[in-house]
């Protein structure tokens, strides 16, 4: 959290003598610095206390935590008074893994853990080396083997049975893994002095950014089959993935373009003086600096993008949000959708919050250099 205390805010009262209990002093400075401020504090405390109290009453005290399998009568009895958390143990495997064969669900679970380990390792700056790329390629291959199976004695599971958290992570990860290089190419294209390449890049970025992602997804789900030669049918998940890659590419291109603009001209001139070719100049000199400049906005784009993968719900792909929505169609549990949404929101929150924390720490460490 940034230090809120040293904001250039309102006139701070002249420094009072530092006497008395430090707790009281803190209270006086931060909560009761003036009469209106004191009133505000009391009003806020009252609202907060009431909010927390009713939430605790609903979410903990009156909540139903466990029921016998497939029996929601206890929850129905507590309806309106307390939460029905029992729906989570009842449905969590469906929410997390969708219709993946029940006995094989350790495989997507392992894939999720692999993804998380991969993200964690990628945040370690000491590991930012070429080997990390090989690690990524190896891990993604391993994840594909786990998800599809069909080799090493694993039974084959077709893509239309995948669902839940692994699908969300796949859409996001592959979207970024392919969208990022695409974004770099488009950003370079947009700054190229070759007019045809420049206009194509501008057209691509503006067209994609000007329309909602929903319409791109519709396009992927409805128009893709029209685009392809007859008899050639690509999977629904892959079509959505392509739309997401194109979408990510356009947004990342704009962020990277910002970084390219921040690289001083002298760096280009020095690279030219060394006689480096266009690609070597950018790969060795310009891009590393440009990307370092825009790490915080890049992470923010990643977060936005991770959340946006949930839009595939609209074209009926079983990502985490879709499985959550499907889980509550079950008539016995229909009335307890709020609890399920809170559970899924918590999962999304953990991922996004971790990323935003990481972005903050990166910002702090790049600023200090």
């Amino acid at each position: 959290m940034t230090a809120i205390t040293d904001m250039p805010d309102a006139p701070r009262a002249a420094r009072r003598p530092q006497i008395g209990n430090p707790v009281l002093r803190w209270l006086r400075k931060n909560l009761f610095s003036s009469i209106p401020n004191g009133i505000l504090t009391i009003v806020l405390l009252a609202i907060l206390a009431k909010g927390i109290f009713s939430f605790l009453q609903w979410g903990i005290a009156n909540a139903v935590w466990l029921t016998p399998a497939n029996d929601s009568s206890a929850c129905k009895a507590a309806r309106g008074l307390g939460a029905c958390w029992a729906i989570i143990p009842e449905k969590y495997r469906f929410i997390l893994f969708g219709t993946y064969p029940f006995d094989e669900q350790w495989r997507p679970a392992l894939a999720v853990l692999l993804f998380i380990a991969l993200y964690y390792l990628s945040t370690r700056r000491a590991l930012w080396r070429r080997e990390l790329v090989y690690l990524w390629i190896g891990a993604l291959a391993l994840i594909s083997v786990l998800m599809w199976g069909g080799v090493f004695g694993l039974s084959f599971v077709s893509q239309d049975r995948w669902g839940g958290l692994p699908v969300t992570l796949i859409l996001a990860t592959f979207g970024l893994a392919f969208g990022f290089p695409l974004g770099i190419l488009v950003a370079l294209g947009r700054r190229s002095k070759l007019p045809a390449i420049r206009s194509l890049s501008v057209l691509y970025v503006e067209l994609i950014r000007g329309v909602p992602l929903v319409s791109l997804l519709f396009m992927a789900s409805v128009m893709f089959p029209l685009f392809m030669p007859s008899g050639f049918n690509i999977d629904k998940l892959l079509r959505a993935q392509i739309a997401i890659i194109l979408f990510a590419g356009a947004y990342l291109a704009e962020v990277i373009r910002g970084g390219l603009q921040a690289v001083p001209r002298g760096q280009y001139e020095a690279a030219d003086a060394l006689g480096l070719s266009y690609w070597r100049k950018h790969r060795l000199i310009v891009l590393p600096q440009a990307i370092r400049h825009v790490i915080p906005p890049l992470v923010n784009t990643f977060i936005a993008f991770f959340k946006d993968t949930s839009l595939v719900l609209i074209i009926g792909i079983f990502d985490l949000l879709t499985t959550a929505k499907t889980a509550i169609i079950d008539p016995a549990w229909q009335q307890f959708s709020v609890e399920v949404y809170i559970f899924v929101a918590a999962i999304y929150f953990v991922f996004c919050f971790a990323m935003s924390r990481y972005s903050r720490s990166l910002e702090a460490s790049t600023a200090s250099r």
Partner: protein
Amino acid sequence: MTADHPRPPPRRRFFALGRNELKGLFWQVLVVGIAVGVIAFLWSNTVTNLSARRITTGFAFLGREAGMPIADSLLAYNPRDTYLWAFVVGIANTLRVAVIGIVLATVLGTLIGVSRLSANWLLSRLAAVYVETLRDIPLLLQLLFWYVLMQALPAARAAWRPVEGVFLSNRGLILPAIPFGPPQLWVLGAAVLGLAVFYIIRRRLIAQQMRDGKPRPAWPFALGLIVALPAAVSLVLGVSWTIEWPQLRGFNFVGGLTLAPEYFALLIALVTYTSAFIAEIVRSGIQSVPRGQWDAANALGLRRSFMLRQIILPQALRVIVPPMTSQYLNLTKNSSLAVAIGYQDVVSVANTTLNQTGQAIEAIALIMAVFLTISLSISFFMNWYNARIALVER
């Protein structure tokens, strides 16, 4: 963007073109060739597929009867109307949620952003929690959440009444309203005219004050043009301003203004979600004003409201306006999530059209055209505003 940097003039060789130009030409021909090739390939496939499925292309279907119901709309509509009119109604619905959403999100976001900077620790912490929570949960999930909550509200007969005349039930939010017709429109027109004239007069007054330094109060003009003029028109035309109070009759409400649950859920989700981003923009904008400006204003003994309005905000706005533009665009584009809960915005209408007629290309082209137009208008307006408030440098 133009060229990266100047290159040394290429050495003229045997050819008229230097090595770099040849290389550039080669790359351009290659890339354009690939692009044209891909498009031609997709195009020919599409033409083949369309003829195989007996789908005629073109916008002729727009004149046919739509037959789709649109429950909640500003403009009069019935299923016998044409697809064209259904699209217009959808566009009006998109604009209705986007315009009101932008206004509310700006107000709420500014409040939260200023709260985050408050000297009151509790207030600033609460604002921070609000921002962090809303930013890290997908908008679609929030939208579904609000929609479920709306449906869980009591039935019309047991509606909540937070204030007299306001009902909240699973039929949506029902507010008292003033019936609006041509007579009221005349009064509104007078008010708009008065505002425009007042704006011109105020500019004159400020220009005069700039010349001789004498302050000239503008409020008498404001009173005359914005208050007295519409009031006079209202009196002369004898417009009635009775408020229509909604009433429960049988199983439903009569009178008043109804915000359908779909619309209300979409509006809440868009406003709260976008306000979290706007709050961060406002906060960083205010923080970007150098500390010395606050100190100087304090040293002059200016009142806090005057200081904020005349010194801090004009400087903060320069930082705030460009990212704010993208938030407005995001809100507008995000309103397309309406399709998930069945509010019929332009995307939802296009989707239904697409399913009914199979005119996929035309329907998606219409969505894209509408959003590109809206996006370009918002950017155009915000760029104009940005240019107006930008720092004039020597």
